[in-house]
């Protein structure tokens, strides 16, 4: 993030600063302050569509205005509330293994923090100072106060990255502008416009004392009170640290800091140096404005990854912390990459082999066949089907023709063999067959003397074949003639070639006829 926004929510004013990181160091991009007007009517912000949202309380209204002034509506912000709403305590305890440290410190902290553990949010900064002794600073805020501040910030369109105590921001600001020297102990005093004075004394990065007192706005009384409170705090710090002496105290906040610095240096007989923040790159901003914006500046620097020498205390519960867009984008990019890899692996490891197998199987089927017959792929399936459909009837047509071919020579030979001498045939008709649908009666006129034409239209049992034999038998006796004819019919029926062609050969008609003064038997034999 190249830009950070800090919002300090005081008791009577809100101060916001947007800062950027440059090669020369952090710079204030914009800053603004807005008083919290306790009796101000609540406003309802309008969105782009003109519809109104929930009314804003004075704090939220001030935050919204101050963000509008620095053109940072909807920005990610780091915020701090008035130090009077936050409790910071220092204690020592035996060093605890890391895995149990958190639970043990928070349990121990309940003895010092004036809030219920269940109703507050706590964070700590612990360092092992002596062998097996941890020096711990715990900072806590009541959940109700935190939630109200969060609601105010979110109602004012701010996206809250973190809420931290004021001392962290002040320490970070002085550290960022390189005013903190290598001295072991540091003191920070923040004067606020509501008269609250926040004092923080630290040694080796551990905050030993963080407390507030109020000024009464009576100049003489305030000077004396300021000196007394500070002296008491220094003495307490001296006792807590086992003899650490404060030599430098940094002043920040509202009011005439120069005057206060002179007064305090004088009051402490110049044994302690009092300094206010100086911004070498911000010449066009009045010093008193810069001093009052120092807390918000320190808060803005957190987003620019400037560490606080007093520890980066987190008062926003983990589940309420908004991740930085970069972190979210990084997570999403990693998520995307992992999913892409997983899906690509699934594709390559599981599905691609299936496709490859199918392709190979297909190639194994067609490959050798194509080599053998290059024309295999040249025709479409439809063309092949059409070709097959065209070939079948041709084969069937010729096959049927060849199958139904008769052998009249064989039939005639059989008829001629064993013909009784008493029988004279007048007509032999081998009808049907040959695959011809048209009967001879339709196609050609019957020969003279033929009497078989009347049956030619009949369908026979075996493939439309029909045999008609007409003739006469003469033996001088009707009985003998009939017997000879019947016997011949039986002989014919028993012949294999005839039984193959005709299922039944029978004597259809027998009659006596006188021809040239001779009585003869005229017969008609039919084979179907």
């Amino acid at each position, binding site marked *: 993030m190249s830009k950070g926004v800090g919002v300090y929510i005081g008791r009577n004013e809100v101060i916001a600063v947007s800062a950027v990181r440059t090669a020369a160091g952090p710079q204030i991009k914009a800053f603004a302050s807005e008083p919290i007007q306790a009796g101000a009517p609540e406003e309802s912000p309008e969105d782009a569509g003109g519809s109104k949202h929930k009314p804003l309380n004075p704090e939220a209204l001030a935050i919204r205005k101050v963000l509008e002034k620095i053109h940072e509506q909807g920005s990610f912000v780091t915020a701090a509330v008035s130090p009077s709403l936050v409790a910071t305590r220092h204690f020592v305890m035996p060093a605890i293994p890391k895995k149990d440290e958190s639970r043990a410190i928070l349990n121990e902290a309940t003895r010092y923090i004036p809030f219920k553990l269940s109703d507050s949010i706590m964070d700590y900064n612990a360092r092992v100072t002596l062998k097996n002794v941890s020096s711990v600073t715990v900072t806590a805020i009541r959940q109700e106060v935190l939630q109200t501040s969060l609601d105010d910030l979110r109602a004012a369109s701010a996206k809250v990255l973190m809420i931290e105590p004021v001392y962290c921001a002040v320490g970070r600001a002085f550290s960022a502008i390189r005013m903190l020297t290598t001295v072991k102990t540091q003191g920070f005093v923040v004067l606020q416009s509501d008269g609250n004075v926040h004092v923080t004394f630290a040694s080796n990065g551990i905050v030993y004392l963080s407390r507030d007192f109020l000024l009464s706005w009576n100049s003489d009384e305030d000077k004396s009170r300021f000196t007394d409170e500070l002296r008491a705090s220094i003495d307490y710090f001296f006792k807590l640290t086992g003899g650490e002496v404060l030599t430098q105290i940094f002043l920040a906040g509202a009011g005439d800091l120069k005057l206060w610095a002179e007064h305090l240096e004088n009051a402490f007989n110049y044994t302690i140096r009092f300094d206010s923040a100086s911004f070498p790159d911000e010449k066009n901003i009045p010093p008193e404005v810069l001093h009052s914006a120092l807390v918000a500046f320190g808060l803005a620097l957190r987003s620019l990854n400037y560490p606080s020498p007093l520890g980066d205390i987190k008062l926003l519960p983990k589940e309420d912390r908004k*991740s930085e867009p970069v972190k*979210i984008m990084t997570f999403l990019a990693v998520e995307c990459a992992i999913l892409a890899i997983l899906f690509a692996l699934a594709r390559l490891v599981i599905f691609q082999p299936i*496709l490859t197998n199918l392709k190979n199987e297909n190639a194994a089927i067609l490959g050798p066949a194509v080599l053998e017959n290059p024309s295999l792929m040249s025709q479409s399936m439809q063309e092949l089907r059409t070709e097959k459909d065209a070939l079948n009837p041709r084969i069937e047509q010729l096959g049927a023709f060849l199958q139904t071919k008769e052998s009249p020579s064989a039939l*005639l030979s059989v008829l001629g063999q064993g013909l009784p001498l008493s029988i004279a045939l007048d007509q032999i008709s081998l009808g049907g067959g040959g695959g011809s649908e048209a*009967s001879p009666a339709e196609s050609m006129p019957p020969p003279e003397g033929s009497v078989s034409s009347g049956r030619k239209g009949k369908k026979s049992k075996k493939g439309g074949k029909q045999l008609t034999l007409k003739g006469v038998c003469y033996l001088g006796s009707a009985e003998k003639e009939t017997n000879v004819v019947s016997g011949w019919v039986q002989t014919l029926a028993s012949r294999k070639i005839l039984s193959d062609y005709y299922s039944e050969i029978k004597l259809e008609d027998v009659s006596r006829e006188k021809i040239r003064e001779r009585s003869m038997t005229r017969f008609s034999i039919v084979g179907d």
Partner: protein
Amino acid sequence: MANIQIREQHKELAIKIAVGVGLCAVFFHFLISPVFSRSVFLRQQLRESHERLELFKEVGRLKDELQVTEQPFAGLTARSSLVGKISDIASKNKIDVQAITPKTIPEGEYVKLRIEITGQASYFSMIQFFKVMEALEPPMSIGDVSLSRQFGTGKKTKGILKVQFYLETYLLKQARGRSNA
């Protein structure tokens, strides 16, 4: 109803899950889903290949079968020579052909040649003639054979039958390329 508070981390988790689900859908759509359609296509192609191969083999087999079947049949241009050949064979077998009427009827891919013959011949001449016809190439179908005795007193008519029959064969519309093998 309990006061449900949606925390920032819950929102972010929801965003991460939603993005994850969305990405899964996108990756599924672009990486996995095409596999299914491709697989269906390849399986279909495989079935088609089997079918194509079978069909190709079947067509080849049918072509061979047709070639064998068509082998003895003559082309359409052989019509007149065939009629002449039959007439010649009839004469050689002592058949007195009185009428020979060729007729062509298109039937599918072929042309049916039907030759109706009327004449006179002895019984044995007819048997001999039919034997030759049955062995003739192109194959001939003999049908509607009618042999009738002629009634008369002359020696010429004794044993001579009035005969009537038809011969049928198929002629190929297109000239067939005969192999030398």
